[in-house]
């Protein structure tokens, strides 16, 4: 029975693909500013929920893909995801049992760190990005986190065991 409960790789793959797509979908400018950081959200979710299946290596590889998709410096997203992912993985054991809104609050500094890292890399490599574009998603990501959690628990319901 326990074997059935183990999440397979499929939901992870699908959700990651969806996150990539959602992060690429064209939005009108004002909405694009508020677009939650989809890929980090899904990465952190899996880091929290199944750390043995989805580790930092996956996070870094996914970061590389994002780098290519968004045309940023190869390794920028990978670096930011690795650093912030490490923090998430460290607090996973505690945070994963909290209610979603509390998780959202706990993760807020990490979103901030993630945004700052991206902003910092932009600065170091003299690619002047709009600071607002980097930091505005922090809040919307925090708001979107409980939504993501409920969507994921609906799409991946706990098996019925009594």
């Amino acid at each position, binding site marked *: 029975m*326990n074997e059935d*409960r*183990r999440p397979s790789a499929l939901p992870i793959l699908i959700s990651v*693909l969806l996150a*990539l*797509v*959602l992060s*690429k*979908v*064209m939005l009108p400018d004002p909405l694009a500013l508020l677009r939650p950081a989809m890929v980090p959200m899904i990465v952190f979710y899996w880091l929290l*929920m*199944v*750390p*043995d*299946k989805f*580790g*930092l*290596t996956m*996070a*870094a590889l996914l*970061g*590389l*893909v994002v780098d*290519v*998709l968004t045309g940023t*410096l*190869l*390794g*920028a997203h*990978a*670096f930011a995801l*690795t*650093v912030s*992912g*490490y923090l998430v*993985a*460290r607090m*996973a*054991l505690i945070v*994963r*049992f909290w*209610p*979603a809104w509390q998780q959202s609050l706990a993760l807020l500094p990490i979103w901030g760190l993630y945004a700052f890292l991206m902003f910092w*890399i932009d600065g170091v*490599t003299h690619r002047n990005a709009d600071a607002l574009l980097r930091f505005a998603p922090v809040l919307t990501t925090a708001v979107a986190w409980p939504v993501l*959690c409920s969507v994921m*628990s609906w799409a991946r319901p*706990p098996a019925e065991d009594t």
Partner: protein
Amino acid sequence: MDGRFGVDDLHQDSIRPLFPRGPSLGLKAVLLALLSVGLMFADDRTDTLNPVRSFIAVAAVPVQWMSSLPNQASEVASHFASRESLLAQNSDLREQQLHLQARLQKLDGLAAENARIRALLLSSKRLHEQVLIGEIVSSSMDPYRHYVTLNKGGMEGVYKGQPLIDAHGVMGQVVEVTPMNSTAILVTDPNHGIPVEVNRTGLQTVAHGAGDSRGLALPFLPSNADVQVGDLLVSSGLGGRYPAGYPVGVVYDVQHQPGEHFLDVSARPAARLNQGRELLLVWKDGAPPVTNVAEQLDQRREAGLPSFATSDLQ
């Protein structure tokens, strides 16, 4: 996120990191971070990572494609939206087209009038005489009294006995002048006669009006006179009233009654007496009309339309 699920997960997944087989979490993070930094450095300073980048890009093509789907969907939506607006635009244009069609019909009338006036002007050019365009304001309805009233009178220099022509031939002459208007008798009035010659032979005679039904009659031609159907009659100018050489009519009937001295010859007037409203008042020797619109228009159309030809008269 219920507790039971969490506890189960704890048994399966979360205990493992406590006894990791691979490198610890911190070490892994440091290694990956360093690797990322190295990648960034390499990508920033050199081109060596371009193959890696393009490899990942190729692998990520499906993602790119899927993310463009909503865009395409919205394009389809806008396709339907624009169909609505196209329909509205279509009905608008249809309405507009109706309006314009109506105006175009008016324009057709104007163009026809313009052509008639230009033809008049061309005939005046041929005459080398001073002319003034007049307009018929009324005409008598009596079939045997062919009088018309013109909108030009003594103030414009119209005088009694002044010839009238149109684009195709002689129309008649002025018989009465008031300051603002004048009355003219047409060549088909039974009381009117005009000296003519048969264009083909030079035979001189007089054409009398014969009313609506016959047009013109040539009453005094001897029975052996050379007149045929289709002969063109032109004004001879012998009476001193009409300019010479101007079409008056075309013979359409020649009959000889046995025992009579004269032929019974009928001619159709060359001028289109009952068509159109414009005509020309002709001054023979330079008594100038007040307004000389004719000349100005004439100059503009110097190289112009063919002048009225005899073919018009058939």
